[in-house]
Structure formats: structure tokens, C-alpha cells
């Protein structure tokens, strides 16, 4: 049973990591809009873009 003294602290470290990751995700706005991204993967298609003026988009 002694292994538990190692595993539980490991679990706690994982917990801390997940909390940190969750906070980061919330802060960076990943939970702000849960509807659009699912559809955007369908919309951003591979068809050649039209010969429109090239935009400067850093987003």
C-alpha cells in the first residue's frame, strides 16, 4: 500500500496542472463561444481563395 504515498501526490500534481490548464483556457477565451468553432472547421474549406486583394491578417 505504500505506493499510495507516491501516487496520490502525483495525482495532486496532475490536478494542479489541470486547474492551471483550465484557467488558461478560460482566460484565453476558449469557453466564450462554444458554437462557432465546431462549424468553422466545415466552413474554412480548401477551395482556392478568390483573386481578392490580399489582406493583412495576423489573427
Amino acid at each position: 500500500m505504500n505506493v499510495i504515498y507516491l501516487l496520490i501526490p502525483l495525482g495532486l500534481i496532475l490536478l494542479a496542472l489541470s486547474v492551471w490548464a483550465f484557467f488558461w483556457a478560460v482566460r484565453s477565451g476558449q469557453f466564450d463561444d462554444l458554437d462557432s468553432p465546431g462549424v468553422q472547421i466545415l466552413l474554412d474549406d480548401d477551395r482556392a481563395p478568390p483573386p481578392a486583394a490580399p489582406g493583412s491578417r495576423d489573427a
Partner: protein
Amino acid sequence: MDLAPSDRRCFHCGGPLPAAGRFTVQIDGSPRPVCCAGCEAAVKLILSQGLGRFYEFREPPSQVPAGGMRNWSAFDREAALRRYTHECGNGERELSLQIEGLHCAACAWLIESSLGREAGLRQIQVNASTARAELRFDPHATTLSRLLARIEALGFVPLPLSFVGDAAEGTAERRAALKRLGVAGLGMMQVTTFAVSLYAGLLQGIAPDLEQFLRFVSLLVATPVVLYAAQPFFVSAWRSLRARRPGMDVPVALSVGAAYLFSVYSTLRGRGAVYFDSVVMFTFFLLLGRYVEMSLRHRAGLKHDALSRLLPQSSLRLSGAQAERVTPDELRAGDRVRVLPGERVPADGRLNLGSTEVDESLLTGESAPQVRRPGHALTAGTLNLTGVIEMTVTHVGQDSTLAAVSRLLERARAVRPAVADLADRVAAWFVTGVLLLAAAVALYWLHTDATRAFATVLAVLVVTCPCALSLATPAALAAATTRLARAGVLVARGRVLEHLADADRILFDKTGTLTRGEPRLEGVVVLEPRLTAAECLAVAAALEEHSEHPLARAFAHLPAAAGVREVRSVAGRGIEGVIGETRYRIGRSEFVREGCGRTTTPGASDREHTSVVLGDGSGPLAEFHLADVLRADARETVRRLTALGLTPGIASGDRSGPVAAAARQLGHIAATANLTADDKLELVRSLRSAGHRVVMVGDGVNDAPVLAAADVSAAIASGTQLAQVSADLVLLGEGLAGLTCAVETSRRLMRIIRQNLIWAVLYNLTAVPLAASGLVEPWMAAIGMSASSLLVVLNAMRLLDRTAPRRVEPPARLTPAIPA
């Protein structure tokens, strides 16, 4: 119907088509009809950028581009830039926009992709669920007006949000709540695992050092949950105590705090029970309920002050011979302003020059346009329909009528909590009772057996902790709101469902609520025997094409006669033009009769229809009856609501004729016409003081105070955006059917809440005496509490059964607008 609905409707906005194929666009090689030049331009712009896939993924329909493009140049002025944007270093500026007409992910993608190509735009992020966009642009490479015009060209209406306002507050609140929920959830998973081990150890034995270790680990995990995630409960409990009205949060805070402190004490001492699992679980479930409630509130857009949306984005201020575009908040009393047809009046004022008709329906409910001549007063937010006018501003900002309506709304809202807080007041008594009981138990045990005093008091507190009580309602509410959202009804305030369940009166506004808010041709009376109805209609349609009047829309789908010349529009009266050799007039009866030199006979206001007369030099030729048609599901909804025991009625600002006609079509329901906003408020108040529970269904600004004064208010989302803000329930889509579902759901909800409360009371009645007598160990109390909470939540989940109605597309959209 011989054609698929999509071919009978505008490809872009889904609106009815004008006389055959005047505007078409090529989609994948095949022509598709669109209804107007605005839609045509929007489709062409979208296609030219290769973003045509928007049409495959959007949820139809898109917004009709508002007639004509606005002039956004006022936003390039330094003052406007300072107000609406915010310098973010290296010369770039940021701003937030509220985007009207943005309702699906495809719309968000369209705006992002289209604007992303604009030179000078550095970053754009569009959020479909809040209809907000965040932009960063370089003012040297592009102008703000250019970006705004581009969004408008796509068929949306951008509304710059002032940086002074709370553009980011909602987001911040939601993010903070989500973080708390996350911490509590992750903590709960861990602590529960440890707790299971500890309980198992209790039954079959556990090494003392291992038990102690598990307790310390639980303490470590539970600490952030209590100190960080449960913080809102402590803050709110403290606030309610200071206000001397202990709310539900007091025992919550007390139980969480006491159980945590006691567990810490036991852990440090190495003896006694720990309740970390109960503490964490309790916190998580409560936070979950509140989070769901909050996201629903935010979604209904309650925070945004939508009254200001009625003001134009810019207006032409005259100084000397010069005119410049300014934003509404730059206007001062005494300024002279020119208002073009199709623009909204920017401030209260007096008309100096020109005459026109204004649409005041948003403020007064009167559907017919009002004539305004020099000397007449103009109200901010009303729509100038026909003429170019100049006005002098008399009141701006807080002094304006619009602001007064807004204050009326605030006042009406302020009255409400008296009823809404009943539950809290009951809770306050309950809480006070529990605290007194705990104190009594403590006193008793201190005198008899001091060593057991703390454990017993804690058992009492935990056992009576209104878990079931305070969880019963939010869990059931969350389930009910989810069910309703599926049926297309958004619940903006959770409490309102309780009132809806025992409502016995339902009042409808007419225009835009029971009706679709657009006139339709109901009948033609030909007065001149040599003409046919079709000929008269063709002439009328040709003339009305040149009219901005709302009634003219009734003729928009008809084939029009060709070759109209010398068109002249007379504000408030009608329109005149020459076709072939004949000079025709169409409009009010007196206007047409003047054209042939006859005396006038004023029309009666109690007629069911609004009439438009067509005439030539010899006299009237035909009379057209126009009426605002009822929504397709209005009749059925009213019938079912009556079956549910609600007495329906109409309270309208419109004339008595159309109102009586609507009441008759709906099965002879009670109707009151010619009501001002104050009258309606009075009507609702008198019904309420007579002991009725009133549901008010409306859609306009004038309804807002009335909506707030009713026990329950509902608004149709396709109507004015503002009504959503003040309504408790928002019906999405074009129909009223959601109302029936809301009433049924609210009654089931109340049944379930009642069952939950009865359970909670029974549980407390059994458990409290046992706990007070010291027979219940705190750990047993915690298990009892958790089990009772679980039962309550599961009971609430019954609201989410599979038979929950899906949102049904209203049939109205599929039927042709004009009968063949």
C-alpha cells in the same frame, strides 16, 4: 404551391419576392431570386470573396439589409474614435461591436472571413453566442467607417459599443464563474475518491497513518474549493446578514464554513469525522445551478442598454451653411439637424423646415404613420419615412422621451421584487429558525455533555442545511429552462416560471405580437365598372413602388404596370404619378378626392381595415383594404392557453377596428384598443390588484414598462430587439407556440419543486430531532444530506424527459405571402 419555398423567397434574407425576377444572383451557375438591391449586393459581395459556403451552413434567414446604407463617416471623427475605440499601442485601435442579425456560427465566420481581407484590419474575433465582435485595426491604413460599412454590406447591423460602458463585464463575470465551477468540479472528483477510501476504511478497517494521510490530502484539495470557489456564498451571506435579511446563502455559508473548519480541526487533531467530500460536492452543485442560470441570463442580453439602439448612429448637424455628420451624444439642445428619409430622429426637437411622416410605432404602438409639419414636435428614435426635414434639438440624453421611457421601465422593474422575493423571505424565516435551533441545541448540550456539543450542533446544521431546499429549486429550474430552450423559449429570469405556473390572465399586444406587423392586401373594391381588379392593382403597385410608406409593402409582391412618370409623393397623404395618359393618385381617400375636385368624407376609425384609395381625374377607381394578418399559430395558441385556464385578452395601442377584428378571429376574446403605454400599465396594475396573475406578451419599446409591471412578460425575438431586454421569456422565431409549452413546463416545474420541498421538509422533520438529540453523527448527517440532495436532483431531471418538445419551425414562413 408549385415551387419549392426557397424559390419563392429571397435567396439571402428569405423575405417575399417583388414582382417576378427583377433581382437575381447566380449561385453555382443557376439563377436565384433575391428581393431587393440590398440583398443582391450582399450576395454578390459574399460570392465575390469566395465565401459562398456561408449559405450552406447558416441557419436561415439572414437579416434583410436595412433600406439603404447608413452613413458611417461620423465614426471617423476624432471625438467618436476616442469614445468608441481604445488605443492599444503601436498606433492601432480596438473596439467592440454588437452585431444585429448575427445569429449563427456561419454568420460569425462570414464576418471574420470577409473583414479579414480588409487592409488595415489587424485582428477580428466574432462571438456567435453573444453577437459581439472585437476588432483591432490600424487607423492609418483603413477607416472605421469603412469597416462598419463592410459589415453592413454583408447584411448585418454593426453597433459600436462605447468603451465607457461595460462591454467586457459580462465576459469577465462568466469567466470568473466558470473558473470557480472548474475548481469545484476538479476538487470534487479528487475529494470524493479519497472519501470513498475513508468510508471503506471505516467499514473494514484502515491503517491509522494512511487514514490521516488521506484526510490531509482531502484538506489540501478542499481548501481552494472552500476559499476560492465557494467565495460567492460567503460574500452574499455576509451581505444579506448586514442587510438584516438572512437569505439562503447564510446556512449555505455556515454549513460550508463550519463543516470545513470542523474537518480541519478533526484532521489536525487526528480524531473525529471529516466532511470534506460533502463540502466540496455541495459547493459544486450549487455553483453549477448558478452558472446555468447566469449563462441563460447573459444570453438573453439583459445587460445591454438597447434603448440607445433606437438612436441613429449618426446625424447631420447643420452649422451655418455647412453640414457635418456627428454621433448622437455630440448633439446639444439648440443644434439644428437635418434628417433624411429612412433615418431615425436623433433627439427630441421641433420641426423647422419641410414636412414628413414619421413612424412612431415603437414608442406609441400606433401602426399608422404620423404627419409632422413645421412647429410639430419630433421624438428621438422615431423613424422619418418620407421627407427631408430640418429640426431644432430641444432635449438630448437624459432629458429625452426615450430616456423617460427607460426610467419608467426601471421604476416598474423596481416594484417587482416584492413578489419575487417571497421565496427569499420564507428562506429568511427558515434560516433564522435553523440558527435559533442550533443555538438552543448548543446551549442544551453545553450544559449536559460539553464534549459532544460541537458534533451535535454541526450535525443539526448539516442535517438541516437546506441542501434539498436550496438545490431543489435551482436544479428543477435549470432542467425546465433547458427543456424550454429546446422548444425555442429563452427564460431570462429563472424565478418567472413560478409566476407563470399560476398565471390566470394573458394579455397580448396586437401589432407585431399577435400579428406579423406587416400589412397584407385583404380585399379590393372596384368602384369604376370599366376596370378589373387586376388592372387597378397593377397601377397601385406601380405607384406604391415609389413610396416608403409601410403600407406600400402590401403591394410589393404584385406585378406592376410599366412606365410611371412624374411621380410626386405628398407626405402623409399619398402618391401621384402618370401612367400612359392618365394621372393617378393613390393614398388617403381625401387626397384622391381632392385630385378630382370633390369634397372629402373622413374615414371612420372603427373600420377593421386600413383603406387605400386609387383614383384618377374623374374620381375614385378602387379601394384596397389592407390589414395586418395574424400570425399563423396565434389562433391555436390562444385556444390552447384558454384550455390551460388562462383568460386571454388584447391590449393594443392600435385603433379599435383592427383590434376588434383580431379579437374576433381569435375566438371573441376581450380586447381594449387605443391604449397608451400608461393606460396599459394601469390595466395591468388594476388586473393585478384585483388578484389576477398577469402574463403580458409584447414586442415594442412602449411595452417595456408594461412588460416589467406584469407578473410575467414574454417577447417575440423577431420583433424589436429591445423587448427581449425587458422580457422574462423570449420566444425565438416567428411564432407564439412556445407560450403554451412554457405554461405547461412551468406547471410541471412547480409540481416537481413542490414534491422536492415536501421531501425536504419530511426529511428535516425526521432528521432534526434525531440530530438534536445527539443520535446522529455528523458523517451520517452528511450522507443523509447528500442522498436527499441526490434524490431532489434526480426528481428535477424528470423535466428533461424524451418527450420534451423540439423547437418546431413555424409554418408561417412556408406559406406564400399573397393568396393566389
